[in-house]
């Protein structure tokens, strides 16, 4: 018998790696930096010493964040269209249960690891209690995941209600601090979860259409709205991850200002530029992905879009909106946290947003000109990040701004050739040349 897990797991993970490799790498980079800033032993001691209510709340926040950030992956593993299609084949329910339970357990290996680390001191004095808590955490994570999949077909409000109720239950169980009770509840939920994995799941509900820039008119705005619509509706998971990544990088940049802004202002400014350019790079990648997604449907758009100014401005606006979290995060940080480098941070963020938008346009126009838009332009992206990141660190925001202007000027010059190449490639549905 061909292994179901052998087909599904590598297939899904390959898709995830291809789609979100840069973001995952950026998030891991942030995570390792945060671990260095707040050492795990300190956090563990803090959790152990705090009162049960505070500990429960802190754990619940971390738990919910983890579950929410990785929800898209869980959905992809269990509810992906490919995976659901396989449900028409005569595959025994127990095979589905084993495959999905293993996949989800693998996804939440982090939970098991962190819970094990947190419970290690308790294990020395109360072995059975610590073990019960650890198993309860693993079972609870599995049940939470299956709950996420069951509720995926409900409305956003329904999903939030489910998450709130589950979080309240989590907090209550942690506050009561009875390992046997926790294990009993978690085992019951896990049993339900494993049984449920044997039956097909409904498809995730379609996000309600949101009108972006609804009141604003004009062809460039229309293009920007279309691009943003594609980003949100067809690549929503990546957009959300990119926004989270941008905000995390802004948080790191603020942290640098707070910690060394007085002692070493030039070092802090260099860190600010580094982090904001990295955040802008995430937004650029988001915008490039949108252009690549739209490419196959260009035959339908080309009769409507013709002017260079209109199209480039539209794309620029859309890419700029995708990079706005960098600026918004910097402003929010300036309001919330006091440090001496607000003006420089703001300038760096504004320049980074402009550069991000123009880099997205530059990368995609060049890829179209070379008929290479179907390949992820990782080299072009990394090259720009390196050059502009270094320029920003050495010469400041003005250099980033200059890079943005140069990028736009080159894109403007290349556009006619790129447009011609694109129109040749995508003439009509089904006629697109395949590689």
């Amino acid at each position, binding site marked *: 018998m*061909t292994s179901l897990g052998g087909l599904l797991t590598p297939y899904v993970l390959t898709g995830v790696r291809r789609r979100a490799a840069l973001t995952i790498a950026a998030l891991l980079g942030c995570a390792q930096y945060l671990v260095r800033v707040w050492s795990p032993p300190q956090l563990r001691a803090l959790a152990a010493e705090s009162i049960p209510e505070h500990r429960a709340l802190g754990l619940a926040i971390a738990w919910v964040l983890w579950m929410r950030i990785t929800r898209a992956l869980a959905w992809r593993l269990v509810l992906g269209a490919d995976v659901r299609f396989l449900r028409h084949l*005569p595959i*025994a329910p127990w095979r589905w249960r084993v495959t999905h339970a293993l996949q989800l357990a693998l996804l939440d290996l982090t939970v098991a690891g962190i819970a094990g680390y947190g419970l290690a001191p308790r294990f020395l004095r109360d072995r059975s209690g610590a073990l019960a808590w650890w198993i309860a955490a693993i079972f609870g994570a599995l049940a939470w995941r299956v709950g996420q999949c069951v509720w995926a*077909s409900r409305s956003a409000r329904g999903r939030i209600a489910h998450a709130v109720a589950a979080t309240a239950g989590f907090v209550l169980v942690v506050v009561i601090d009875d390992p046997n009770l926790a294990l009993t509840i978690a085992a019951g939920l896990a049993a339900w979860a494993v049984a449920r994995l044997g039956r097909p799941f409904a498809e995730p509900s*379609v996000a309600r259409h949101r009108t972006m820039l609804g009141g604003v008119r004009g062809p460039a705005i229309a293009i920007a709205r279309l691009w943003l619509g594609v980003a949100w509706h067809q690549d929503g998971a990546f957009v959300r991850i990119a926004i989270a990544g941008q905000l995390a990088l802004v948080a790191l940049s603020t942290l640098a200002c707070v910690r060394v802004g007085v002692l070493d202002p030039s070092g802090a400014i260099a860190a600010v530029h580094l982090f904001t350019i990295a955040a802008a790079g995430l937004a650029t990648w988001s915008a490039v992905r949108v252009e690549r997604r739209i490419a196959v449907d260009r035959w339908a758009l080309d009769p409507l879009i013709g002017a260079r100014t209109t199209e480039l401005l539209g794309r620029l606006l859309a890419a700029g909106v995708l990079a706005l979290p960098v600026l918004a995060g910097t402003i929010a940080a300036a309001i919330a946290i006091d440090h001496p480098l607000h003006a420089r941070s703001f300038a760096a963020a504004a320049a980074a947003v402009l550069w991000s938008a123009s880099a997205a346009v530059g990368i995609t126009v060049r890829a179209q000109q070379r008929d290479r838009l179907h390949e992820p332009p990782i080299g072009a992206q990394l090259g720009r990040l390196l050059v502009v990141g270094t320029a920003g660190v050495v010469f400041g925001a003005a250099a980033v701004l200059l890079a943005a202007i140069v990028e736009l000027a080159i894109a403007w010059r290349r556009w006619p050739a790129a447009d011609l190449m694109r129109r040749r490639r995508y003439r009509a549905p*089904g006629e697109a040349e395949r590689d």
Partner: protein
Amino acid sequence: MTELPALRLTNVTVRRGGRDVLVDVGATLPSGLTVLTGGNGSGKSTLLAAIAGIIPYVRGEIAILGADLVRDPVAARRNLGLLPERADAFVGLSARAWLTFVAGIRGVAVEPSLEAIGALLDDPSAIDRPMSTLSAGQRRKVALVAATCGEPPLLLLDEPQNALDEAGIAALEAVVERWCASGRAVLCAMHRPGAWLQRARGHWHVGDRGLRIVA
């Protein structure tokens, strides 16, 4: 063949995107070709997906050759093959890998041979390329081979003619003819059935969230 109906629907309600697309649908599918018609968004594909077990139904019973889809899911699914409207599942795999997987799950050999499938695709090398690089018609031919893999007694076809060239349509019609001649059942959802209605033994119509048996 067995006397059991190929498909029996009893008060089936299917919900999708928070609304009931089909309510209390009941019917028994005869052997031979049955055409399923209905307007855009009426629920033809949803009905086929529910019968195939891809979309869970909220009420009712679906039995395929007497095997209940919920209580005996493996037996029920072993009795059906599905050609979906869009053949875009697992397009990252090669046709060879996909068909080998489907045949492995069904416990049979790939039939016709992979070489014959390569000829059907008009390009023998296409069988080893990722399906994402194949044309829509080629992917559909691969999906047709996957649907008929193991010769299931019930064949569900969703807009089967979409994207197929003449050779593909000839292959499709040969499959339907073979299924009907051997007393098996084919349920075929179509927007514009045309000549298919004349050779069909049954005609179902989906509309107003219900199923009407026209003939």
